[in-house]
């Protein structure tokens, strides 16, 4: 067969977005698409302007360079676009890069582009890949829509239907099936797919999937073995390094965890979450210098993006205080106030952190004044404090003699995290050190019991057929203890039970979904999350 005279694809009815900071390359891509009849082509020279375009138009295909100079890179744009659902279910995302990178290869369905092209791009390959991906996404669009609606069981049914006949997408389907099984808490099914894949080939993504399941199943040693096989084969699989670090940290090997993160960062230093993980591990090891550096980089990377969060600022300030650098800690908190000036919760937490900072720099009077101002909110809104900030506050509250706030803060903390043995131990130790050992023991017991009591009362009310009362009780408790995944999931369970008896109700579906999503944030690996999502999908359907 000769390669001349091949028919060009017809892109005359398709819309394209080209995201590329280099003007020359924008022209080349436009000309290539133009040769296939494309006329609806938009351009963006930066990640931010790409997102603005994506807000307005649902493109058939996005051609995006991974490296966009200053600002967001292509990977961040893709993740944000997926998170904000700015892409059509059938829309194709082609990542273009000078080099093959780990992000394009590993990752999950949410973070992976549909396909990638490594430069130099030939016209032939661009057309082949675009056509194949457009065909594939047409077939997969209903699955994508189901996933967006959190209907994982429906998505799974569709995947299984498609898998019944062999096609060019079989392996895409299998990988998707495993991810869906993980989402709906069906670890066994996910495991079967990964093991089947590994039986065919030593595929890094399948081995990583298997390791994640073992991690969730608390088979840490086996997870470690699989992860080492991936990271030993190539340093390029960054996700595997992140999971190795997580696994080693759980196994108590902090040195190893830090090394794994540093390896990943040596190849790809521009990931805010990875810098924060390094900060945490280094701080736990007492390597405050590394911790401070990592937090600083994480803050810089996330600034002004949707990933910006209060935590790394607070952590950095904490590390600096531990090093006796209260002046610098004050600066960091000052910057937090500026960087997140529109976030009232961030403003509140910044002011709370100022109490230990002022006290450390000898400003006892100023600290006392600030505490007097904040104490009512602290007692009333204790659930807004991240746990570590509560512990930062413990010393100052004791020193300034505000026992009432101290008790309120830790009662709420323990009720919010009643299954966290570490927090209970730390609180008991803290009270013991302050000469209030018995009170500490009592506080821990009461706080834990209060959380359990609410759940027990909810169960007995619902058993007694008073489901409405049970719902009211748990709804109120969830409001006060939004960090307690068990409570949130129990509430979701009751909501689902209610709908099983009285029929599907969109308000309750939405409420249950919020509970489950909030619980997933603090307990991302809880198997019940997926199980309840599946139940919620089925109820009254």
């Amino acid at each position, binding site marked *: *067969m*000769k*390669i*001349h*005279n*091949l028919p*060009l694809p017809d892109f005359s009815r398709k819309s394209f977005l080209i995201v590329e900071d*280099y003007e*020359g*390359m924008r022209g*080349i*891509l436009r000309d*290539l698409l133009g040769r296939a009849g494309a006329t609806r082509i938009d351009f963006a020279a930066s990640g931010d302007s790409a997102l603005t375009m994506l807000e307005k138009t649902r493109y058939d295909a996005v051609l995006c360079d*991974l*490296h966009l*100079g200053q600002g967001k890179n292509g990977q961040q744009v893709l993740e944000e676009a997926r998170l904000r659902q700015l892409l059509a279910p059938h829309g194709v995302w082609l990542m273009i*890069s*000078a*080099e*093959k*990178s*780990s992000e*394009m*290869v*590993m990752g999950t369905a949410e973070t992976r582009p549909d396909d990638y092209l*490594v*430069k*130099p*791009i*030939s*016209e*032939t*390959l*661009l057309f*082949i890949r675009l056509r*194949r991906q457009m065909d594939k996404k047409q077939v997969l669009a209903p699955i994508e829509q189901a996933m967006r609606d959190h209907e994982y069981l429906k998505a799974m049914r569709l995947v299984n239907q498609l898998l019944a006949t062999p096609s*060019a997408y*079989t*392996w895409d389907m299998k990988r998707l099936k495993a991810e869906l099984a993980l989402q709906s808490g069906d670890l066994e099914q996910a495991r079967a797919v990964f093991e089947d894949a590994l039986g*065919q*080939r*030593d*595929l*890094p993504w399948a081995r990583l999937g298997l390791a994640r399941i073992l991690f969730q199943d608390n088979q840490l040693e086996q997870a470690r073995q699989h992860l080492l096989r991936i990271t030993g*084969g*190539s*340093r*390029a*699989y960054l996700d595997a390094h992140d999971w190795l670090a997580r696994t080693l940290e759980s196994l108590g090997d902090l040195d190893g965890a830090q*090394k794994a993160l*540093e*390896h990943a960062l*040596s*190849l*790809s*230093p521009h990931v805010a979450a990875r810098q924060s993980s390094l900060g945490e591990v280094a701080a736990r090891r007492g390597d405050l210098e590394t911790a401070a550096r990592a937090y600083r980089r994480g803050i810089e990377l996330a600034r002004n993006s949707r990933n910006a969060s209060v935590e790394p600022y607070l952590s950095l300030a904490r590390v600096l205080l531990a090093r006796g650098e209260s002046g610098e800690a004050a600066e960091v908190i000052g910057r937090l106030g500026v960087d997140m000036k529109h976030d009232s919760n961030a403003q509140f937490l910044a002011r709370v952190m100022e109490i230990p900072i002022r006290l450390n720099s000898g400003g006892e009077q100023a600290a006392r004044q600030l505490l007097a101002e904040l104490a009512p909110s602290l007692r009333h809104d204790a659930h807004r404090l991240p746990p570590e900030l509560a512990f930062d506050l413990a010393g100052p509250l004791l020193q300034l003699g505000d026992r009432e706030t101290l008790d309120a803060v830790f009662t709420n903390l323990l009720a919010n995290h009643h299954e966290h043995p570490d927090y209970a131990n730390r609180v008991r130790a803290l009270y013991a050190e302050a000469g209030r050992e018995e009170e500490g023991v009592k506080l821990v017991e009461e706080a834990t019991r209060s959380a359990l009591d609410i759940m027990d009362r909810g169960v007995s009310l619902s058993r007694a057929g008073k489901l409405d009362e049970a719902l009211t009780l748990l709804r109120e408790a969830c409001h006060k203890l939004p960090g307690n995944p068990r409570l949130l999931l129990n509430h979701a369970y009751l909501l689902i039970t209610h709908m099983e008896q009285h029929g599907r109700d969109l308000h309750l579906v939405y409420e249950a979904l919020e509970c489950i999503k909030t619980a997933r944030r603090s307990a991302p690996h809880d198997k019940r999350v997926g199980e309840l999502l599946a139940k919620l999908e089925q109820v009254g359907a």
Partner: protein
Amino acid sequence: MADSMSDANLATAPDKMTDFPNPVNAEPGMSMSHFLVSSVHDMKNSLAVMADFLETALAQAADPATPLYRQASQALYETRRINDHLIQLLALYKIEQDFYPFDPREQNLADLALDALSRVANLAQSRGISLEYECPDNLHAWFDYELIVGVLVQALHNALHYTRDRVLCLIAADPRGGISIRVEDNGPGFPDFLLRQGASHQREISFETGSTGLGLYFASVVAGLHRGGERHGSTRLENEGPLGGGCFVLELP
């Protein structure tokens, strides 16, 4: 440019240097390997731009029979050959430093053939060489696309240089499982010393022929990375194939 798919307009804008391996625990900064790798990147991009210019010039030239045309065609071959080598050096560096993100996927082989042949079509045309492929439409195999297309393009460049007037790429399922890719020509065939060395990794640099052995070494490393069960990929050279010239064979499990 000439006709439809003979697109050597490989889109070659200067690309931005990306994932860079810094020594672990060191501040991101400069080192000799940094300069080596970034320079190779830079040279590769410049050569690709030069090759595009040459292809455009050749496509617009009035008379292919002039010495100037033949020299430009020769320059195009040399430019592409060096470009192949730089791409191979970069990939080998990453593989040997353990940071190449090897990504085997099940992929269509006709797509691969079409892409590889389109990348060398202008060179073939400028030399009046007939370039063809045979591959079943629905044949798939597991492979890392960028590595394998690199091996195939290099083999095609080599065949286009040594052939008389025909180059054929044959892709077929192997009855023992896996697939075989053959690049055949009707030139004088490979010299004996190359056939003897075969696919061996330890290859002496031949100053007489000017061959560094890089292309074959790259091909054998890449083939070896592809594993399926107990088997792994391999390369070999043969003479006297169906076209009567040399034949480069790549087998993947």
